[in-house]
């Protein structure tokens, strides 16, 4: 029992201590360097094979408050292929917006400079749920042009989501507290659904769960995929009898292969199972 309490206390300590998060106070910017950038993002930059051949910016979902303190199999496999993974630690509900995009770019820039990765190195964006939204709209608000975007059960319509789930309003207000435009407008101008023409022209991969309990999510993902296809983008769409973000093995393999191919690197012989 004592061991359990000790373990729980340790977990609590680990969750509360440590990483600074995005968005950071602009005054902090000049103090951020490669030496302390891991307070703001996980990266496999220390183990990546050089020269760096690709960069994968991996956005987390809503509610993520932890840190990644050990290189995961996913990160190690990417590193082996010469791909730097950058996993920004956002605020618990930090929905992608102009200011946040600028700060993510700042972090990416620090890591890129350290790795001497020129602008020509391809960059991919990916994420699930809120991270999927971020992967989609990061391309709208940032100057980085991705070679592909991967989104797993992404939130594509904050406006519709809030109408169906009023409990999300508080999360949204936390995320967009920097603006005082009319609320419905704020939700729409930060939702991929209403920004089709501004989403980067690139290749997209979507995963969608037929049994996703989040109301309307799978339908909205399908709509977005269809609109992008109509626009002329290449879109890969995988759906299956899964819930929210728990991809099947087949979907995970498809995701990983898509990512590796677009970064122009060879996939490992035995692709790790987790898409993270």
């Amino acid at each position, binding site marked *: 029992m004592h061991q359990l309490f000790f373990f729980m206390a340790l977990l609590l300590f680990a969750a509360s201590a440590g990483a600074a998060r995005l968005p950071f106070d602009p005054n902090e910017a000049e103090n951020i360097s490669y030496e302390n950038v891991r307070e703001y993002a996980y990266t496999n930059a220390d183990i990546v094979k050089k020269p760096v051949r690709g960069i994968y910016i991996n956005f987390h979902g809503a509610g993520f408050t932890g840190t990644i303190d050990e290189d995961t199999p996913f990160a190690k496999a990417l590193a082996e292929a010469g791909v730097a993974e950058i996993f920004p630690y956002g605020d618990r509900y930090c929905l992608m917006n102009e200011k946040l995009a600028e700060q993510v770019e700042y972090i990416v820039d620090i890591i890129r400079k350290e790795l001497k990765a020129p602008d020509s190195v391809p960059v991919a964006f990916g994420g699930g749920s809120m991270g999927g939204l971020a992967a989609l709209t990061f391309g709208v608000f940032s100057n980085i042009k991705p070679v592909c975007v991967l989104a797993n059960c992404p939130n594509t319509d904050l406006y519709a989501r809030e109408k169906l789930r009023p409990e999300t309003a508080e999360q949204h207000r936390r995320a967009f507290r920097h603006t005082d435009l009319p609320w419905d*407008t704020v939700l729409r101008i930060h939702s991929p659904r209403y920004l089709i023409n501004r989403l980067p022209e690139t290749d997209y991969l979507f995963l969608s769960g037929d049994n996703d309990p989040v109301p309307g999510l799978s339908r909205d993902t399908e709509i977005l995929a269809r609109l992008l296809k109509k626009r002329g983008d290449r879109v890969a769409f995988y759906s299956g009898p899964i819930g929210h973000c728990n991809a099947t093995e087949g979907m995970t393999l498809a995701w990983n292969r898509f990512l590796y191919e677009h970064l122009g690197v060879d996939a490992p012989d035995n692709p790790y199972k987790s898409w993270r």
Partner: protein
Amino acid sequence: MKTVPEQIITPENLSRFCYTNAPLLKRDLRGVILTFHGRGEPGFLSHSPFSKELAEKGLIQIFPYYGPWAWMNSGAVKITDALVSAVYERWAGGKDVPLVCEGGSMGGLAALIYPVLGCRKPAAAAANCPACDLVHHFSARKDLPRYFLCAYGGGGEASLQETLKRRSPMHRINDMPDIPFLLVHGLSDRVIEAAPNSERFCALMEQAGKNARYVPVEGMGHCDMPPGVSKEYYDFILSFFE
């Protein structure tokens, strides 16, 4: 010193540089409607039942032939100024009759930015599915960069980015005059999307204490106003003339 368009355009040769129903006017001038066309318009219109009706009401319509890809560049502004000046010189009889500008798509942009760039402050402006944010619009579709380069790449201007901002209504909120603006936008518009254009523009205008009304229309595509909305749009324009 007169600009080149002012040197060339006279009340007598107006029809070479714009469509106008001015020759149909049979009563004192009550007002002028400046209609800006969208991208790709080849020009040379003829009288329509609507323009005839306007003339009967004492309203002159000016439809500048300002270039299919003008995006309200400095040439387009000067041509429009010269046309407006020529019309007022010949038909206004010294009276300061109201001017209202309106347009759709690229013409909508023109209608929104002319009050900032033009020589005569309009009484109101109406726009149908306008491009409000040129900085983003530049790369919104594959075809757009070449149009903007044609419009603004002729030299004598600042960087393209600065030029886009100078002509972008979204970036000139503080310079917008204190006149009523009406923006109609189709929610199914895939050419120029409503939320990041008209919706955001009107929200920023309201935040700045200015008068801009946003009318989103379900099911409407690009500039394709249904009859009820079209009536509201034109009633707004006509309401500024006594």
